[in-house]
C-alpha cells in the first residue's frame, strides 16, 4: 500500500492505494467515479480516458500511485455547478451521443485538445480523438460537436 495525495476534480484527496492498483480502479472502485468507462483494459479503446494535469491519458495504463501529487479530472469534474461544459452541451445538441459508452472519454480527449489548441481544424480534431474508438456514430457528429464547442468557447459564451 502507498499513501498518495492528489487533486481529483478540484478536491484534494488522500488515499491509501495498492501498489498494483490502476488509476481506473481507484477512480471507479474507491471513489465511485463510474463515468470513467471500462472496456479493453489494454489501452486500445480510449473509453477510460481521464485528464492528468490537463492532458488526456488512459486510466487503465496508469498506476494510481503514479498520480500522486498530480491533478486528475474525470467526466464528473467538468460541469460547473450543474451547468454542462460547452463540450458536453455541444455533444448533446449535435447528436454526437448514441450508446454513450465512448462519450466521457471522447469529451475529455476533446477538452484536452481544445485547452491546447482552441481553433483546431477538422483534421486536427480527428487526430486529437484518434485514440478514442466509437462504433456508433462514424465520428462525424462528434467532430461537428467539437468544432461547434470550440467556436462557443472562443466566443466566450
Amino acid at each position, binding site marked *: 500500500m502507498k499513501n498518495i495525495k492528489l487533486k481529483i476534480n478540484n478536491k484534494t484527496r488522500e488515499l491509501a492505494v495498492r501498489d498494483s492498483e490502476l488509476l481506473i480502479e481507484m477512480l471507479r472502485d474507491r471513489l465511485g467515479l*463510474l463515468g470513467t468507462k471500462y472496456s479493453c483494459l489494454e489501452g486500445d479503446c480510449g473509453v477510460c480516458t481521464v485528464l492528468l494535469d490537463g492532458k488526456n491519458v488512459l486510466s487503465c495504463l496508469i498506476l494510481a500511485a503514479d498520480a500522486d501529487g498530480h491533478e486528475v479530472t474525470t467526466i464528473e469534474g467538468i460541469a460547473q455547478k450543474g451547468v454542462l461544459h460547452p463540450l458536453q452541451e455541444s455533444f448533446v445538441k449535435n447528436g454526437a451521443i448514441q450508446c454513450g459508452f465512448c462519450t466521457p472519454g471522447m469529451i475529455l480527449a476533446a477538452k484536452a485538445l481544445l485547452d491546447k489548441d482552441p481553433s483546431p481544424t477538422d483534421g486536427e480534431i480527428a487526430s486529437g480523438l484518434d485514440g478514442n474508438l466509437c462504433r456508433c456514430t462514424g465520428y462525424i457528429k462528434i467532430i461537428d460537436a467539437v468544432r461547434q464547442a470550440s467556436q462557443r468557447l472562443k466566443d466566450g459564451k
Partner: protein
Amino acid sequence: MENRTTSPVGKSVPRVDARKKATGEAVYAFDLNMPGMLVGKMLRSPHPHAKILSIDTSKAQNLEGVAAVITAEDTFKIKFGSNEFFFPNTVDQMALESEKVRYIGDEIAAVAAVDEETAQKALSLISVKYEVLPAVFDAVSAMKPGAPQIHNAMNNIGVMMPVQFGDADKALKASDYIREDVFVLQSAAHCALEPHVSLGRYEVSGGRVTLWTSTQAPFKVREALAKVLKMAETDIRVVKLDVGGGFGGKLEMFPMDFAACLLSKKSGGLPVKIYCTRHEEFSFTRRKHPMIYKLKSGVKRDGTLMAITGEVIADGGAYCSYGPTVIAAAIMRIFMVYKITNIRIMGFRVYTNNPICGAIRGFGGVQSGFAFESHMDMLARGIGMDPVEFRLKNATDPDMTTINKLILSSNGLKDCIKKAAEASGWKNKYAKAKDGSKNTVKGIGMAVAADVMGSKMYKAHESAGSIIKVEEDGSVYLFTGAADTGQGSDTAMAQIAAQELGIAYERVRVKAADTEITPFDTGSFASRVTFISGNATKNAAADAKRQILEVVACELKLEKDELDIRDEQVVKKQDGSVIISFDRAIQLCYSFNYGHLIIGRGSYNPKTTPIDFRTGEGNVSGSYGFEAQVAEVEVNKKTGQVKVLKMYDVHDIGYPINPASVHGQIEGSIIMGIGYTLYEDLKFSEGRVVNPSFSKYRIPRATDTIPIESIFIETNDPQGPFGAKGMGEASLLPTAAAIANAVYDAIGVQIKDLPITPQKVLKALKEKEAV
C-alpha cells in the same frame, strides 16, 4: 417547464438520455455494484472439438473464497436456440455442455468467488478430462462426406433454405448475356464498446431471480432463461440498463447470463457479476458469418434481369444461434430490390468447429449486398449498360407484390437511385477515361439495398407493447418494452408519444425494457423498433388521449369525436379553436367527480404472412425501406491502397421521427461498412481467433471518417407511425458493393473477395496486365 417542444416528430430534439451520458451519470451493467457481490467466471473449452470424459470441481469448490461452482450437472440440460418457433432443429446449445465441446470457448462450468483472482484460480483447479476429436474449420470441408460430425446433422448442414420461383434454367437460356461469379466474405466482430456483462441476483425466499444484463432483447433473454432454468417468466426479471452498443451481438441469452443467475442461487442469493474481457468479446461471443456466394445470372440486351441462380454457403461455427434468420436475409433480400421472377438459390449454413456466428447488423444482408450488388454491376457492364440505368430498369416499384408475395406499399427505391446519381454527379464521373500516367485514380460506384421492419421468424407474433401513464400534474410516463442500445429508441418513442398525445416532448419520461414493469417487446433487431414499437407507443398515446377527451367532453357537454389535443391544448378538430389547456384537462380527469386515472395502452403486431421456407414465399415484414449509395474512391495503383473519398446515401426512411438520429444511424453504418469493406477481418487458426484485440483487429477511427451526404426520401409509409420506417441496418448493406464497384470504375478490376486489401488490389492489377 422552460423548454417546450410541441409537435416533436420530425424535429432533431436532443435525446432523452444524452445529458446523463455526457455527464457520466448513465449506468451500464458493469457500473452496478451490490453488497456481497461475487465475481463469476466461465470455464471454457481449450479444444475445438472434444468429448468430455469427466469434470472434477472438488478442488475448486474447496478453495477459500469460492462461493459456488456449477457444471451441467447443476442444470436441467435443456437446449436453447434463437429460431425455435420455425426451426426447432436449430435449438442446439446448452448453457453448460456436458458431453461434448464444439469450439474453443464452449462453456462447461462456471465459478463465483469473492474476487477475480480467486475466481481465476478456481477455474484453474477444475479438472476436465477430454477425448480430443478431429475438427473441421471451413464450411466446404465440413459438408464433405466423412467430415467430423459436430451435431446430429447430415453433412454438418444445420440450415438448408431454398428460394425458388419461375423457371430459372429456361430464363437463363433466353438471356443474351450470362455470367458466373464467386464472392467470398470474411468474418467480423461487432465491437460494441461495452463488453457483455451479466449480474444475477437470486432471491432465496421468493425463488425468483433478477438479471441486469447488457442486452438488445431482454424479453428474449427471459424466455430462454425461463426455459433452461424451468422457472415461470414472472419469476425472472431481466433489466436492461444503458447499453453500450449491440449491433446484433447482444441479441440472445448467453451462457454467462444463465450462469450469473444459477451461481447466485448456489451462493445463497449473493449477487454474481460476470463480464467479458475484450479478448473474450472477440473470441467467444458472436461474430459475422463468413460466406461464399456462387451466382450465375442472365440478362437481356435491353437490361432486363432474366434469371438469378446460385448457392450460398455460410460457415456457422459451432452452434446455430440466429442461423436461419441470417440465411433468409442472405438469400431473400434480393426480392425487395429487383423485379426478379425466375430465381433459384440454395442457402446452406454449415456447422464447423469455429466460434459461433450469429446476428450482426443486417443479419446476412451485408453479405448479400456485396455479392448481389457487385454481380449486378458486372451484369450491367457485360451488356454495356450504365449500372444506374440497369438498376432503374429492374428496381421494384411502389404498391407491388413481388413474386414471393412481399407486399411493397411505399417504395422510394427508384427515387433513391435517381437522387443518388444526381447528388453524386454520376453522369460526369462514371466510366470516364483515366489518366494513365498517374498512380492514383478515382472511381465511382453505386449499390442499392432494402431493409425489413422486423422479421417474423422468432415467434408466432412480433408484437410490441407500450403503456402511457399521465400523472396528476400532467407529467407523463411511457413504459415501453423497446430496448435502446444507443440507436435512440427511447427518444423516438418519447417523440411519438408526445406527438400523438398533443403535448410537449419534455413532459415524457421513458421507462424501457424491464421485463417486470414494461410490456413485452421482441427486442432491438431487424430495424423493427421505430416501426413496431413506435406503432405500439402511438396506439397507447391514442388510447390515453381518448380517455382524456372523454372526460372533457362529458364535463363540457361536447362530442368527444369532435375534440383533439394539439400543442398542449384541447381543441376543436374542425377549426382548431381552443377549449381548455391540457393541464386543465388533466385536472378535470383527476377531479372530485371523475377521478379517472389516465392509463393508455397499445400494442402492435405487423401485418405479415408466414414464410414458406420451402420456397421463400411470404410477406415477412409490415413494410420495407430502400436506399441507394454511391461511393467515390481513389485507388493507388502502386500501393494498392483504396481510399474512400465520399459516400452519398439516399434513403427512403418513410418519415424521420428524429432527423439527427436517422443521419447518425446512416453515418455510423457507412463508417462501419467501410471498415468491413477495407480492413476488418476476424481471423482464425485451427478454430482460435488470432486477432482478439483492438490493436490487432482494426476498426475505423476518427481519422478514418469521411464526408457523407445523407439525403432522405420521404414516402410517408401508410403503416409506419407518422409515416416512419425502420432504418438501423439498411445503410450498412450496400456499402461494400458501392466501394467495390467504384474500385472497378477506377482501375478496371472487380475485387470479389472482402476485405479489399492493398495486396488483393495489386494481385488483381497484375492478373489484369497479364491477360
